[in-house]
Structures are given as C-alpha cells and as structure tokens.
C-alpha cells in the first residue's frame, strides 16, 4: 500500500510491545500537554434549575470565608466552572473532599476558574469520587473550555474513576491546587 505512512510500522511495534502500566504513564507524560484533564458526565438534565442543572432543595452551603464566596451546592459556585457530575458538596463530601465510603480518583483533570472575591484565577482539580453508585444530588455540568474527545485532556465526558479500585462514579470535587500565573486568563 504505497502512500501509507511509516506510522503503521511504529504502530505495529507498539502493539507488539503491549501496554504496561509503565507505558501508560509514559503516554501521559508524552501526550498530556497544552491543557489538563477534564472528565465525566455531560448534558445536564437542564429541566428546571437553569441551564446547568443542579438544584436539590438543599439550603445554600457557604464556606464562611468571604474570600471563597457562593453556595457550594449550586452549579454557579465559582470553582465549578468546568465541573461535570454530581456535586460532592451535596453527597457527604465537600467542594474539596470525597464522601466517606468513596475513593478519590488519583488521575485528575483541572480547570482554571476565577474567584469573584479576589479576582484570582485558581487551578481547580476536579477529582472524581469512586466506588459508590451515582449520588443523585446536585447534577451540574459546565463546559467552558471543553473540547471533543480527540483532546481527552480537555474533554469532560470521560469517566475518570480510572486509577481507583472501582470505576463506579459517585460525585465530583473541585479542589484548589494552585493559582494560575495569568490571573486574568
């Protein structure tokens, strides 16, 4: 088949080599550039509570810190700018912790969200919580910056319960892991 690339040869070699845990990590190092990983759940059941879903009858849950404003059970909370799934704040966890009984996914996707109180852009890690069935509370889907699955690091439809004992998805957190250099983003 003239006209086909050399990639086939490399591809065949790669298949022969197999895919070990080590090569998986190598792949991560090699291909995850340009952005970070987003995962899980799409298409909010938009129905009643605005375009992003959410809303469970809960009373608002505030951090109590004026520098971290907003209702953490609402899809509009600033940290959730790229979240996709059930909010752990409604499930027994918090904005930054998984509910008891779950395991936090070690592989994560991140987004950059601007805190309206201090104007800073924070790097938010959306770790999934795994091993318990769908929490069912506060479904939320925001897709700013989301891209098709051809760019997995920017697509939030993957189930990122991957490095965990079980791939069953319960809810998603939004953990502050740093401040973005370009605060205005």
């Amino acid at each position, binding site marked *: 088949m003239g006209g086909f690339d050399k990639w086939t040869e490399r591809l065949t070699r790669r298949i022969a080599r197999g895919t070990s845990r080590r090569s998986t990590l190598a792949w991560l190092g090699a291909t*995850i*550039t*340009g*952005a*970070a*990983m987003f995962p899980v759940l799409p298409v909010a059941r938009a129905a009643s509570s605005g375009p992003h879903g959410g809303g*469970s*009858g*809960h*009373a*608002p*849950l505030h951090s109590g*810190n004026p*520098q*971290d404003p907003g209702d953490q*059970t609402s899809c509009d909370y600033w940290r959730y700018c790229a979240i996709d799934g059930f909010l752990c*704040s*409604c*499930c*027994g*966890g*918090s904005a*930054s*912790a*998984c*509910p*008891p*009984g*779950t*395991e*936090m996914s*070690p*592989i*994560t996707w*991140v987004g*950059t969200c601007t*805190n309206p*109180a*201090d*104007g*800073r852009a*924070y*790097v938010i*890690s959306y*770790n999934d919580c795994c091993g*318990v*069935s769908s*929490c*069912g*509370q506060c479904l939320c889907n925001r897709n700013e910056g989301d891209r098709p699955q051809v760019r997995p*690091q920017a697509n939030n439809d993957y189930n990122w319960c991957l490095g965990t004992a079980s791939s069953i998805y319960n809810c998603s957190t939004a*953990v*502050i*892991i*740093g*401040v*973005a*250099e*370009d*605060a205005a983003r």
Partner: protein
Amino acid sequence: MRSFALALAISAAGLSATSAAETAKPAQKGAFPAALPEEPIPAIAALPDAWPASWVLIHDFHFNSILDGRVMLVDTSSAERPVRGMVRAAQFANMLVSPRRGEVLTAETFYSRLTQGERTDVVTIWDDTTLLPKGEIVLPGGKRQQSVTYPQLFQFTNGEKWALIANFTPAQSVSVIDLDARKVISEIDLPGCAQIYPTGERGFSSFCADGSLFSVKLGPDGQAISSKVVAKVHDIDNQPMFGTPAWQGRTAWFVTYRGRIQGFDFSGDVGKPLPGAFDLGSAEGAAPEWRPGGWQVIAGDAAGKLYVLMSPNGREGSHKDGGSEVWVADPVKKTRLARIALRAQAVAIGVTRETRPQLIVARADGEIDVHDAASGAFVRSLGTAGGANPILVTVP
C-alpha cells in the same frame, strides 16, 4: 498522587501551580492579599466516631433501579449539608445499624451480569465511620427474601452478635448468622409465619397466617431449643397490623390499618400481647375516615409517645397511600395528644432521640421535612437528602 496532579496542572495551558505565598498580588486582589490555600489531595470527608443524635438512615428503595437501592446517612439538623454519605443496598435490600458494633449491615443480592447470570446473596458489613465494607457473609441457596424493604426482615439477636434474616422461596425460613464468625450457623424453618421480632436474649417471634404469634428460643449453636405459640393475637381480616412497629425498649407498638394501637412485649423468651389495645379515634376532615397510611406509619420517642402517620381518605386498600397528618398518642393513658399537619403527603416517619426530639418526615414526592416533635412545627427541609424514593427512616 499529589505531585502527579500538580504535574498535570503545571503542564496545563502554561499555568504555574504556585502556592499562595509565592503568588504575585496585583492590585485587583484588593482586600485579599493572600490567595486561598492549596487543598490536599486525596481527601475523604471524615465521620465522627459516634454519630450525633440528629443523624438518621433513610432507605432509598430506588424504584427506577431497584437493583441499585441505597441507604442515605442524613444529618437532620443541617439544611445545608444533610447528606453525610451513602451505603449500597442492592436489590430489595435490608439494612441494620449497630452503634455498639460500629457497623451498618446490608443484606443484598447481586447478579454476575447485573440483571442476569449467577446470583449471590450476601450480608455486607460496613464500618460506620468510613462507610467502607469490612467484610461480607455469603448466604447460600439464593433464598434471601426480596420484598419492598421491611425492617423486620433482618434483625439482631444474642446481644447483636447474631443477625436473623428472612428467607422466602416462597418457603419461609429464618437464617441465623454469627456476625463475628462471618457465617450462617443455622436455619429455622417457619412455614406460614413472617417477619422477625427479636425476643428475649436469644430468639425471635413471627406472626403467622392463622393469627398467632410464634416465638422461638435459640440455643448457643443457633438451633431452636424451644418455641411457643400464642393464638389469636392478630385479626388479619379486620384489624390487620402494619408489620413495622415502633420499638420502645423491648416493647413493640403496632398500629392496625384501622388505627388501633396494640403493644407486644418481646422482653421474655415468649412474645406476648399487652392488654389494653386502644383506637386512635376519629376527627373532623375525614373522607371517609382517618386511618394510618404509608410505608412506615408509626414511630416512638424516648418519652414513650407514639406518632402515627394518618390519612383522611381511609378506606379498604388505602393503607399504603401515605398520610397528611401525624397523630401523637400516649400508649399509657391510651389517648391522642396532638395532631401535626404535614406540608405534603408522606410515606414514612421517624423520631430522633435528641434532647428535643425531631419528627423526620419522608414525603411521597421524595423531599424530607423535619418538624419539632413536641410542637409539631415545621423546622426545615432537607430536600432530596433521602434519595429518589425514601421509604424508611431509621433512628440508630
């Protein structure tokens, strides 16, 4: 894990994952010179060693996926953060909770291909501070009774060292499980009788189809060593009792479909009816009459008062339609003390053991309401903290 996540973050779109201390602070950061601190990964919310008295377990039967039922751990004092965790309760499961053992137990059924394939029945033992499974006991024979969840299908005996579990194939029996040895130690055949009411130190009673109460005393090996029938304690045709009573110590208060309260004493080796059954009475506003209605219609508080979920549309067949009021009764004085108007039709009620007891109401629309048990006043809504189909409220 942490460094891996940070590595991803650093590679992401040229972001630097600098800590708060290192961050430049442009003018617009105004009143907040320091950035919010980094938060640890991984992080799992912790539960207290002993659950507060405001915490209850609400069974979500999950009609739209019965095989994926759950028990919600709910802090009824918090409108902001009522859900504290979920425990799996698969396929017509039953649940037991023991603060003494520090455990939640679920009796469940699984298929190897979710809906088909090989069946496995197990009792799963969950640690009540981590909500992680710490063991399981496989129940052989595929005979575990599957019903819409009744508490009295799975009960403790022998000082919570054993559990009793109902089987139905439709042959009826009760399996005796040694929880610490992690095994089934005996099976008591029980033709014509149903539900399990722990009785005495080591035994149980069941109601039987002929209207009798059958009590079994178990030996140290779990085998039946004696039994006793008390005849004609239950008029199944005319005064059928809801199978789930309100427990006050070893006394179980049952209510009938027509609103009669009947106590049973299960403190000795033989269960026996208490004298002095009484009717909750009538009231205005009925069409045609007030009767209990719902799935868990009776609850008790620590002071000895009973609470009964009542519907004004009582008639033959209305007993699962839910209720719109809770009637409070004193089983000693045999009188009705109060009527509590609910905000919506409800199917299950429970009363906490707090200093100021709270009435927990699982509504037919899935919302959970909290009322002050003494005044009846509505206190707060817990939203859908009980899941899709909350049908039982368990006060540990």
